[in-house]
């Protein structure tokens, strides 16, 4: 590096208004104040939540129909199709006294392990009863591994109601 070609430049001396600093400070304040008065572009998460677009694939949930009937009949197709094997179902028989005895089958247990779920939506796609739906919920957390497994009760809490336009089981009951 002996032959490095270094050119020494002497800094220009500051002019008088540059020595004052104030114009620069004011220019900066102008930008800051201008933005402070504008509508904010960010959300105050988690106090504010974004609007979730239709068709968003959030946490898979189980839903009931307009009569409060659980739609899932525990066919276990979602369990079969789920690529990371996040779903675990124990099928059961519907209590003959419940008024839904004609449907015969419902899950006794239904668990989705959210540490495994990859939000692919295959379960929703395969479900013949439109009972499992990936809805708007996206924020989930827990204190333990077990806490990340959504059981049947939690899945229905998350899912709520989605009306069934066909009402095939009602027709069957009447028939």
């Amino acid at each position, binding site marked *: 590096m002996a032959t490095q070609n270094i050119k020494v430049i002497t800094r220009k001396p500051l002019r008088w208004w540059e020595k004052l600093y104030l114009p620069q400070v004011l220019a900066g304040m102008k930008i800051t104040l201008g933005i402070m008065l504008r509508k904010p572009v960010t959300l105050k998460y988690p106090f504010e939540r974004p609007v979730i677009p239709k068709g968003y694939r959030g946490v898979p949930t189980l839903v009931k129909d307009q009569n409060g009937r659980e739609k899932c*009949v*525990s*066919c*276990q*197709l979602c*369990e*079969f199709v789920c690529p990371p094997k996040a779903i675990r179902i124990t*099928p*059961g*028989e519907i209590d003959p006294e419940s008024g839904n005895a*004609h*449907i*015969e*089958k419902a899950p006794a247990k239904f668990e989705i392990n959210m540490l495994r779920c990859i939000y692919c939506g295959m379960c929703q796609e395969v479900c*013949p*009863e439109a009972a499992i739906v990936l809805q708007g919920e996206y924020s989930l957390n827990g204190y333990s591994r077990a806490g990340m497994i959504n059981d049947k009760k939690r899945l229905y809490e998350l899912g709520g109601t989605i009306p069934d336009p066909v009402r*095939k089981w009602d027709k069957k009951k009447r*028939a």
Partner: protein
Amino acid sequence: MAEDTTNLVTINIDGKDYQVAAKQNLVDAAQSVGIEIPHYCYHPKLPMAGSCRMCLVEIGMPMRDRATGEPVIDEATGKQKIGWMPKPAIACGTSVSPGLHVKLNSKMTVSSREGVTEFLLANHPLDCPICDQAGECTLQEFSSQYGKGVSRYRDAKNVKPKHKSLGPQVMYDGERCIRCTRCVRFCRDILGRAVLGVTQRGSHSEIDCYPGTQLDGNYTLNVVDVCPVGAMTSKDFRFKMRVWFLKKSKSICTESSVGVNTTVWSREGKIYRITPRENDAVNVAWMSDSGRMLYKTVEAETRLTGFRRGESEVTFDEAADAALALLKNGASAFVASGKMSVEEQFVLKSLAAAVGGNVYLAKTLGENDGMLISEDRTPNRRGALVTGLVKDFDGAEVSALAAKIDADEVKTVFVCGEDLSSLGLTEEQLKKVEIVYLGTQKNATSEEASVVLPSSTVFEKAGTFINQEFRLQKFEAAIPGIKGTESDLTILSTLAARASSSVATDVSVASVWEKLRAACPVLANIDYAKIPDTGTLLDASPWANIAFPETGSLKWKPAK
């Protein structure tokens, strides 16, 4: 249908010649060369009904001149002309004959199938998601393969009973039923009790029991197996698990010395059902309801887990040492069982030889039910003869052991899975001796035992049994052993090795077979890995003078 290879005929399917056995119908013949002709009512083990029409195919025969009987030759090809029938015929009702021509993909065949499928589905419910048959339903399979995929039926579907209990084990769904009458024929022709029949007419017809009867007895679940759809369901298996999750393992039923071939269906170490496996020489395609329930022994309340010495839980090692200490006191006896596999009996023999002591063989007899349960209620008492564990049955009666205990000649009894009190020993006799108990279930003997060695059920281990006709049959492990148990073969091999101050290195079934072949003349030519699924008949002549209790079952009669 048994194949008769000496009597072959040539038939032509879709322009290709095939050699098939004569004297069979077209469905079976096509099956034998790997071609599927869809069918519902026909079942190879039941008489033919010809009612579903799913097997309709276009057939033809080589033409002959009516007047002269000379073959009619097609000018263009120089070959004999084929006279195609103007209407399709049912394959299940057509016997193969030389020169039979069949079209499986012609317009006529395809539209026949589509038509039949459309009619069958017209009133069929959309039940697949809740139907236990889904995954093994021929209606489902054939509809997607040979159906049109659309229905023109616009009226309301028929409504029928959806859960009609026909008997203690069987539930019937009228809407799913396709009235193929396989169940009716099974009861009428196999059971000899025409309990089931078709009632009502046309599309309203359904299956019901004859008034005042129900589908009872010990063979009712076969109806569920023959039913091609989900109309007949097992109350035990109903809604338990989808079949596509289940792993199939070949097993042998331990209910009696008939040695019914079975398939055990399990998922992740849990058994959900047992069904018969076809073996024309033993059980055809049937099995008893009671045999199907034996999987419940795996998780029974009485199941033994955890090795025990006295009152304390110990490791397998400690238990084995404690057992050996008791056995080596010079006055031991062994009670073997027909529930043990051939390999276990053989290793028990070497254990008995190493520590010394007489071997007795438990006897559990019951009534022959005339079908698939014989007098001897253990699967493998013949094995004790073949392995040389006992010379004959009379000399190994457990009653002789009782006398020895009374005479203070026996101090330790090694019991393999049997309950001595039900074999005629009194409570005092049990209390008088030290008992080492090897088995899966708790009983009066295991309660009295000084050392308990919990072992595997038949579903958790592999091995062979020898049935009433000296047929050597193999069973494989369906599920892994549960916690707190070891396989019988491991326990026995460990004891036998330690008794002769060595270490059991290889306790696999295959390694025991090496020694078995050398030691037992009738097994000398048998390769364990190559025992066919339907078993191998052994030479029974060395035991021709022994009076066996069996009087015969469905497919076997003792020689006079």
